[in-house]
């Protein structure tokens, strides 16, 4: 078992609201670690609309999702948050009053005085293709991620999709697979041009197959695939023998493990006290799109406000001996020192 990571607060979700929470907590001398299922910070801003303009951030007439993430990262730099990306929090256990032991699916364990859930729409998880009877094959011979490339050595592998994930895994697995077939609905790829060229060269050299169509049917037994049928746009079906299939259709938001944490929910959202943004489990907070209360608006600016109020309450748990004096960054030398500007 790995060593336990001790911190004041663990923030679940590194979207804009989770990032700004680092700032508000940092001003109150509260140290933070963040866990996010994506391999990058920014949450929906990074995954769903990196290039789209956002018009309703106070004082910033126009900024892109990517731009906002970058600006927040710059703003929270003085507080040295630690990021654990590509991981999902699975359990939160009370071990003190309040003290929590939090574990992730990557096997990390944290010990912290408060937990802040800033998980937005939940966790981004791979889209599952609606192929009849796919469930028994999932995690046995149908995979939405590659954990160990070696598992595919000497196998007949089908990769499905037209984006970078599909192309990257095609190029990575082609040398070790017995035969690799890439399936895409049309003969045009949105992946990086270099990857597309490499893939086309392999096809031209006869080292792999490219089939244009959509997977319509799976064959196999006991979770082990033996073949997949691929239907082209005219309805003609080709059967391709395979040991494994890797569909890459992008990500979608699922609530995920939040529902298992013993927290009061309403309609897949976390109920909070509107003066502290604390849940029914003392020491566990929820801010941003994941929470609900009378009058809630799913706006980034609401999440920022919620983070500021949450931090005031978290201070009681993290520094119970210290009296909290409200201060402004414009005038407080102490806050300015923390920001590295005084």
């Amino acid at each position, binding site marked *: 078992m790995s060593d336990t990571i001790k911190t004041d607060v663990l923030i679940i979700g590194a979207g804009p609201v989770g990032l700004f929470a680092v700032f508000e907590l940092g001003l109150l001398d509260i140290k933070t670690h963040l866990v996010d299922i994506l391999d990058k910070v920014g949450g929906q801003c990074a995954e769903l609309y990196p290039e789209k303009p956002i018009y309703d951030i106070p004082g910033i007439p126009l900024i892109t999702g990517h731009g906002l993430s970058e600006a927040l990262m710059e703003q929270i730099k003085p507080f040295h948050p630690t990021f654990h990306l590509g991981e999902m929090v699975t359990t939160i256990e009370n071990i003190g009053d309040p003290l929590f032991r939090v574990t992730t699916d990557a096997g990390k364990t944290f010990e912290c005085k408060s937990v802040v859930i800033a998980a937005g729409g939940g966790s981004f998880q791979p*889209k599952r293709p609606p192929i009849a009877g796919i469930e028994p094959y999932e995690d046995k011979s149908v995979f939405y991620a590659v954990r160990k490339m070696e598992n595919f050595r000497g196998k007949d592998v089908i990769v499905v*999709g037209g984006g970078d994930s599909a192309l990257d895994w095609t190029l990575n697995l082609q040398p070790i697979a017995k035969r690799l077939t890439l399936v895409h*609905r049309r003969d045009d790829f949105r992946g990086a041009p270099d990857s597309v060229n490499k893939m086309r060269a392999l096809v031209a050299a006869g080292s792999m197959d490219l089939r244009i169509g959509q997977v319509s049917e799976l064959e196999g037994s006991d979770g082990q695939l033996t073949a997949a049928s691929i239907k082209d746009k005219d309805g003609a079906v080709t059967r391709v023998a395979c040991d494994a299939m890797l569909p890459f259709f992008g990500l979608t938001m699922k609530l995920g493990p939040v529902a298992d944490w013993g927290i009061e929910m309403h309609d897949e959202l976390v109920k909070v006290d509107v003066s502290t943004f604390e849940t029914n489990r003392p020491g566990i907070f929820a801010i941003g799109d994941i929470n609900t209360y009378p009058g809630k608006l799913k706006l980034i600016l609401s999440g920022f406000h919620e983070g500021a109020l949450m931090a005031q309450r978290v201070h009681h748990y993290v520094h119970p001996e210290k009296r909290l004096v409200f201060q402004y960054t414009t005038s407080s030398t102490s806050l300015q020192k923390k920001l590295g500007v005084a």
Partner: protein
Amino acid sequence: MPKITFIEHDGTVHTVEAELGATVMETALKNDVSSIVAECGGGCTCATCMVYVDDAWSAIVGPPSSDEEYQLDSAFEVKPTSRLACQIKVTEALDGLIVHTPAYQGR
């Protein structure tokens, strides 16, 4: 106001009034057409508002842009008449438009 008819996978029919300049996706959400998910809120980045434009309307609505076509790569059961509802703007010319919604939007 132009009228749009959504025919859901299970046969449920919604004929609704659409605001000019709004998108077909916004029109669906406003009228509780539940098979339109619109996870990204209209950014053409999630492909969870796919519709099949009725054959009679396909030529009038027109084909997807290349950005939209890329995004359709992450949708399922894509057909030649597939469009993302967030990328179709309501105009007078679309009065009477019929779109069909798929059984599954990826979530």
